[in-house]
Structures are given as structure tokens and as C-alpha cells.
């Protein structure tokens, strides 16, 4: 599903040039749950942004479903993004002025899903996430765990092929964190590819592969072994 060849990202200011990604080659197959780990500033989030097509690479190639997307225009990237990707952020990034229901419905407005279908999907997801009773509440009226569940619901409502999760449990206590990780694992089990950035070894091991980064480079890739 994802293949990068010598992918680089350099940030330039007047005086400083920072290499956030340095010739990264990775491959992620459909159905995988890949965790990206590494210390702060190692380029994890930049990798996530570039793979999520909300940022352009400075050099190298990025193939998404065998299509080179690294050099697409903003408009085309938006098209690919809305039809294929779902995002979960550490800080949830729910829109404060929209209710739970409306936040989850929002991506479907951009993909022009008919109203009846939208209602059905939102309600199904909210039921599944056990927050249906909170559907008319605003984000600031929810607990962190509830907010992240809404964010996950929003990420999956358009049935994306890939979910990009940036520290999804970073702002949650362990119980809520666990709950979110289980939801992600279930989604993966049902066929959704997941790429997750995390600082937590515990969360990383919910995936089946861990990529470790340092100074913008991939240093190791390990398959997660599960002992039953």
C-alpha cells in the first residue's frame, strides 16, 4: 500500500536547515499495523505528515497504492486523502463548535455521502464506540477518552484504507489508552491498515511491526512477536 524511496524532508529557515527525514525507505502492506517509534525530533511526525499527504516531501518518491503521490498538487492530495485516509491525533483535534455527531459526520460531507447513509454510519459507529448517549454534546463536555473515541470514529467513518494515528494515547490515562488501542486493533483485524506513531512500547506492540527512527532515518524494523 505504501512505499517510499529515499524520502527526505528538509525544513529551511533563513539561517537554519533541518533535515527531518533523511532518505527513508519503508514499505507497508495492506492490512499491516505498523508502529513508528523514536525519540522526540527523530522525524516520526514528519513521516506521518508526509505519508498522510498533509505535507510534501523535499526529495524522494512516495507511492500510495502504487501511485506516485509525493508531487501531487494540494487539491489532488486532498482528493486522495479524503477517499483513502483517516487521521487520529494526540490532541484529538475535534472541532469545538460541532457536536459529537457532527464531528463524526464531517468527513462524509467532504466525500458527498448521502444524508441517510451518513446518519446510518454515524449512529453505527457511535453505538460501537459506546458514546451514542453523548452524540449531542460538544467536545469540551467529554472526557479525554471519550473525545479520542469520537476522533477514532471520525477517522474511520469514510471507511479509509489507511489510518494514521499520531500518539493516539498520548493525552489519555492508561485505561482510556487501552480502550483506544483495542479499537485500533479491532479495526486492523477487520482489514484496515494502520500506521501509528507512539512513544509507548506497550502501545507499539499492539501492531505487528515496529519501525524505529533516529535523526530522520529508519534505524531498525522489527516484527512484533506475540506469545499466547
Amino acid at each position, binding site marked *: 500500500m505504501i512505499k517510499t524511496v529515499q524520502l527526505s524532508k528538509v525544513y529551511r529557515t533563513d539561517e537554519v536547515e533541518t533535515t527531518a527525514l533523511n532518505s527513508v525507505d519503508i514499505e507497508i502492506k495492506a492490512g499491516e499495523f505498523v508502529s513508528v517509534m523514536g525519540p522526540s525530533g527523530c522525524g516520526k511526525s514528519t513521516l506521518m*505528515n508526509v505519508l*498522510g499527504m*498533509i*505535507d510534501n516531501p523535499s526529495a524522494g518518491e512516495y507511492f500510495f497504492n502504487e501511485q506516485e503521490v509525493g508531487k501531487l498538487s*494540494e*487539491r489532488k492530495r*486532498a*482528493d486522495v*486523502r*479524503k*477517499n483513502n485516509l483517516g*487521521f487520529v*491525533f494526540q*490532541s484529538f*483535534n*475535534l*472541532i*469545538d*463548535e*460541532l457536536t459529537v455527531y*457532527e464531528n463524526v*459526520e*464531517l*468527513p462524509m*460531507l*467532504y*466525500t458527498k455521502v448521502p444524508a441517510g447513509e451518513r446518519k446510518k454510519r454515524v449512529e453505527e459507529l457511535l453505538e460501537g464506540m459506546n458514546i451514542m448517549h453523548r452524540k449531542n454534546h460538544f467536545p469540551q463536555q467529554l472526557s479525554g477518552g471519550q473525545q479520542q473515541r469520537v476522533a477514532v470514529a*471520525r477517522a474511520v467513518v469514510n471507511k479509509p484504507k489507511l489510518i494514521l494515528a499520531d500518539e493516539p494515547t498520548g493525552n489519555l490515562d492508561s485505561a482510556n489508552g487501552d480502550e483506544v488501542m483495542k479499537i485500533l486493533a479491532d479495526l486492523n483485524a477487520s482489514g484496515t491498515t494502520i500506521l501509528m506513531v507512539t512513544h509507548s512500547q506497550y502501545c507499539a506492540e499492539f501492531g505487528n511491526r515496529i519501525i524505529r527512527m533516529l535523526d530522520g532515518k529508519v534505524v531498525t524494523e522489527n516484527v512484533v512477536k506475540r506469545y499466547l
Partner: protein
Amino acid sequence: MQFKFIFRSMLKNKVFSGINILGLTVGIAAVLLIYRVVSYELSFNKNFKNYDSLVRVVGESVDDGTGQGYSVCIPVPAGEVLRTNITQFDKKSRVKETWNSLTVPNPGGGTPLKKFNTTNDVTAFFADPDFCEMLDFQWVSGDAAASLAEPNTIVLTRDWATKFFGKWEDAVGKTLLIDNIYPVTVKGVFEEMPVNCDFNFPFVISYSTLKGKEDYFYLGDNDWDSCSSNNQVYAQLSDPTQLAAADAAVRRVGEKEYVSKKTGQRMKTHYLQPISELHFNENFNNSGTHIVPKSRLKLLSAIGLLILALACFNFINLATAQASLRAKEVGVRKTLGSGRGQLIGQFMSETGVIVAISLLLGVGIANLASPLLSFVSEVPRSLPFLSNPTVWAFLALTGVVVTALAGLYPSLTLAGFQPVKALRSNAEKSLTGGAGLRKSLVVLQFVIAQCLIIGAIITILQLDYIRSQDLGFKKDLVYTFGFGSDSLSMLRQSALRQTLAKVPTVESVSFSSDQPSSTNTWSSDFRFANRPETEPFATTLKFADENYQATYSIKMLAGRWLAASDTMREAIINKTMLKKLGLNDPNEAVDQVFHLWGSRELRIVGVTDDFHTHSLRHEHMPLTLTNDKKFLWQAGVKIRPDNLPSTLAAIQAAFDEVMPEQVFEGQFLDEEIAKFYEDDRRLAATCKGFGLLAVFISCLGLFGLATHAASQRVKEIGVRKVLGASTTGIIGLLSKDFLTLVVLSLVIASPLAYWLMDKWLQDFEFHTKIHWWVFVLTGVLALVVAFATVSYQSVKAALANPVKSLRSE
């Protein structure tokens, strides 16, 4: 969902939404009120079916030294030539403006049964039959075609017919008396003329009635040299495209007659004034209540647009200052697949909703505030406004323009955020751009506001200057009124004088053609002493009796005032005339002969100091005063200040006793003179009113920006306080940035306002100076208001507990 979202967002940002809505509401209300004035004035005369074909013949003379080169007057023989020789005229009418009384005669003789007078604001006409057709008279009774064909016939408006006869249906065939002397038969009744036209006559008398009546100055059939501005000619072209050809033909009228025998130069040329210019060209009088130069309408429109622009600037400033707070939302929406166009659409709809709310509120406020329009315009209060469909079209257009103006830039800025930057935790700081634009707009707002305030102060100073100016005569406690100029009234002049003199509080009574200062100009060529040629400049003429000097306290430089006389025998000249004649000593002029109108020889008996014969816009003109009973129709009564109401009542009683058929309308001379400056008073009120609005809107924006700045600098203030900054230091820190902008705007506004107001003052021959303190005062006022506006937020921020602010950061 979109609307719900917009309302929630507005509720969340109550202060900023409030500032935007309040500012836009005030701006929109101001624009609507101005639209009401401008559209009313621009609609004048447009309801005539033949608007494009109607013209008036006007004239321009070689400047004769009185500054009165333009005139609407048409000599009687020229009127006849125009009426018969211009083939492009389909319909034509000579008219004479007139201000008579009409009475219902008493069959038993004596006091008439009913009497009504035309007032200064209402002008009646003598006119030819075509006049009714040209101006689309809507007949309700009578024989329209024949109405004005015969001499001694009159047509009345429905209101006036009702006033005279109880029921307008009874009017036709009845007899009325003009000035209680000349009988006229009512031939027709027509609807009142629309309020937005320059013809508000209550009646029209057939032009042929005038012939031979000296009382009404029917000037000679062959006299090309004399004319009165009341004598005019209107015409309707056979086709609007004939205007140029008709104009060329009109310009040929008087080719021989207007040529000076002395110089061979043509002294006067007639040409056509389309009726579309009647309401706007100040060079020529019209018969309506007022003339508005288009420049004034443009100024008013510009002020309206500027006020609205100020409110839009607030919107832009607050939206861009707050853009960073919406960064996360933009980032999320873009990440979820929203395109830039969709986001622009969303932000524009948000602006649209705010503008729509402001429009509704603005309409309400404009409606409530419409009585205030009387301070700045002539728009009648009764005029329907919101029922007019063009108002709604204007509102819709305003809505679109304001939405675009206020919303486009912030929308483009917001929608341009890159999601990767917008979703960063420090996005609020990194995305707060546009500070330069905001500062520029604040400066622009205060430049506009301060220009208006400086304009208001200077116009008020000029009006004060006018009020305090020595006019060269005393205008206080002189009560004036008019009386008939007909032969019967002339006979009763001495009776009126004697009756008035009996009132114990009356000090003196003077009759004249007009008061020392008036809007009338009567000018004539003349020859001085034994000089062989007519002087190369004309003199302004006033006719006055022997009491004129005492009544108005006019200062003499030499000789004495006019002796009592019924006919023209003596003359008084003024200082300017003396200078123009090349004389230095006033005594040199005394006893010289003054040749007027060819055959009249007057002896100069005195020289007066200059007094203002017109408004202070005009320079002093050469003036001649002489006495002739025939031309006395204005009374000036100098009274003592004690018990004014009973004095005024006694003056009216004296008038009613001597001239029972005439209608008394008195006013104080100072009030009459104040009317010369009505237009200037309106300009002052416009600058004052809209200047205050501009300050208000600008301060609203400043308050919003100060609120935003204070919230952005919470951490900085906390750190500074921890490090020992004082409260006043913090207040100074937060206020300094804004006050610097206000000072900068004063630096820009001062020369601009100076230039504009200096230009305006040049219109006045006598005017105040532009004092330096006007600019200082404006600057201090602006600074105080601006400081008061931002200080609330500054003080609040400065007094906040730094521990709290640092913790919250």
C-alpha cells in the same frame, strides 16, 4: 449544519461578533440614511414623462463686475423669439415666477372671505398653456386644454382648491382675486406636483393675464435690456436627440440685440439647460425649495462609503488577528478532505451571516434615526422609504459588497493555512500574521475619523465667524415681512407705516426692495457724473426709504441718507462703488449726478461704508441705493427687546388692519440671514454626525484589537510582572502601540484635512483662519478616546495575577 456552526461560533466569540455586528450595523445604517438622501435628491424631476426632452433656456453674460454672469432671466422679446423661432421646440412656455396672495372676494365688499399666500418656499407661476402638458398635470377637474389659453384664468392644485372652496369639485368656474385686485376664473384643478420635483406651485395663472400689468413688472415687449430672473422659458424638444440643434438655435437668439454698442462685444448668450440639471446646478436658481450640487451628493456618498469601509476594516482586523485561533479547525477540515474553495465558501458564509444580521439591524436603526436626517438634508420625513423596492435592491447590493469587502481577505488567509502548520501545537503564534495590514487599517480609520472631526470643527468655526462678523449693519431686533407690490398696496404704504409707528415698542419702520443682506440681486448699468460712457461694471441696486439707514444702523462715510420721496431723485453709493469709480474721498462723490436706466438722473447725496449685501461667500459689490415707492415691498421694523410676543402681535395686527386681504408672514432678520448658511450648517452637522460615527466604529475596532493583544500577551505580562514591572508600566506597554498609530494618523490627517477645508473656505470671500489648535484639539480628543478604549483591556491585563497567567500558559 453550516448555520448552526456559524451561530455557535458567534456565541463562542461574543465580544468579537458583537463588535463586528455593532460596527457593521452602524455603518450600514449610515449608508442607508445617506442612500435615502442621495436617492431622494437624484430622483428630482425624473417622474416627468418627458424628462429627457424638457429644457429651460438660461443665459450667461459677460461678467459685469457683480459676479452675476449666470441668469435664468429672459427679456420679454427674447421670450417671444424663443417661443416662435425654435423649430426643435415641440412645446414651449414662457413663465413668470410669482408669490401672490389669492383671495375669495367678499360679495358685499370689504375683507375677503378667505386669503392664502404663497410662502417663500412655494413659487406659483404665470405660464402658457403648453406648460401643463409639459409637466404632466394630472387633471381632476376642468378643461385641461383650454385652461390657460385665455387671459385672467387660473388652475389650482386639489389642496388649494379645497382650501378656497371647501370641496375641490366646486372650484371650476369660480372667481378668485390675485392680490385682492385682479379677478381670475378657475378653469381647472390638478393633483399636487410630486414632492421630488422643482415645481411646487399651488396655482398657475395664464401668462396672457400679465400683459400690460405694471404691478407685475411685465417689462416692455421690445426691451432686450431689462429682465427679471422670474421671467423664464421652458420647452419640450420634439425629440431628445434634438438637444444640440435646439441649443445652437437658442444661442443665435439676440445675436444683434445683445451686442454692446460701445465695444461691439456680445454681452449675453442664451443656451439650454436640460431639466436633469435643474436640481443640481447652483449657477441658476430653480423654482423649488433647494438646489443640491452633485459635488455635495458625492461628498455625502463618499462619507457613507468610508463609514462602511471603517466597519469592514474592523471585520478584517479582528478576523485576521483571530485567524490563528481557527488554525486547528482549518487544519482538521483540510486533513479530512476539505478543499480551499470549500473553506473560502465556509468563511464567506460566516461573514455573510454577520452581514445579514447587521443589515437587518441597520435597517431598523436607519428607520429609527431617519428623523435626524432633517439636520443634514431636505428629505421630507413623510417620504416612504422601506416600501421602495430600490431600497431593497440597494440593501442586497450593500450586503454582497460588504460581505466581499470584509470577508474575502480573511477567508483567503484562513483557507490558505497549510494543515501541517495549522495542526502544530504552536500554530496560534506562528500563524498570526497580517500585523502590518491591521496597523495600516487602524491608521486609515483614524485618518478618516480625524479628517471628519477637523472638518466639523472648521465648519463650526466658520459658522461662528459668520455669526460674529460685523455685517456693516445691525441685524438684531429687526422684524421683517413682505407686502404687495401692486398699486393698491403702494397707496397704503403710508397708512401701514403710521399704524406700525403707533406700536410703543417699535423704534423705526423702513420699507425697501430688500434687506441690507439678501439673496436678491438687481443690477444695472449706469453712467457717473459727466463721464461720457457707461461705466464698465454694473451696480447692484436696492430701493430703500428714508428710514432704512436708521433701522439697520448703516454707517455713513459722507453726506446724508436719502430724503423722503415717492420717486427716484437721490442716490447713495457704497465704498466699493467709490473705489471702482476711482475716487478716494467720499466727499468727491457727493452731489455728483448718477445716470440710471438711460434717462434717470439721480443726485448722489451720501456714501456708506460697505455692508454685506449678500452672504459672506460674496465679496463687496458696488451698490447704489435709491428711493422709489414702486419698488418697496419689504418692511423692516426695529423693535425694543421688551415684551417681544406682544410687539410681534401688534405688528401683525397693524398689517391686518391696513392690508386685510394680504397674508402676514414675519420673521426676524437674523433668522433670515442664518438661512443663507443653511447649507453650511448642514455640512457642519454632516461632518459632526458622521465624524462621531467614524470615531465610534474605529474605537470599536481598537477595543477588539486591544482585547486580542491583551490575550496574546498574557504570558509576557506575567513574566514582566514577576520581574518587577509596575501596573502603569504594563498599561503603558499595552497602550503605546495603539496610541502610536493614532498619533501617526493625526500626522497624515492634518495636512489632508487642512487642504480640503482650506479649499472649502476659499468659497467664502470672508472666512475664518484655520488655527493650529484645531489639529492639536483633534489629536488630543482622538488620543483620549483611544486611550479610554484600550485602557480597559490594558488595566485588566496589568492587574491580573501573574501566577495565574503563567500557570495557564
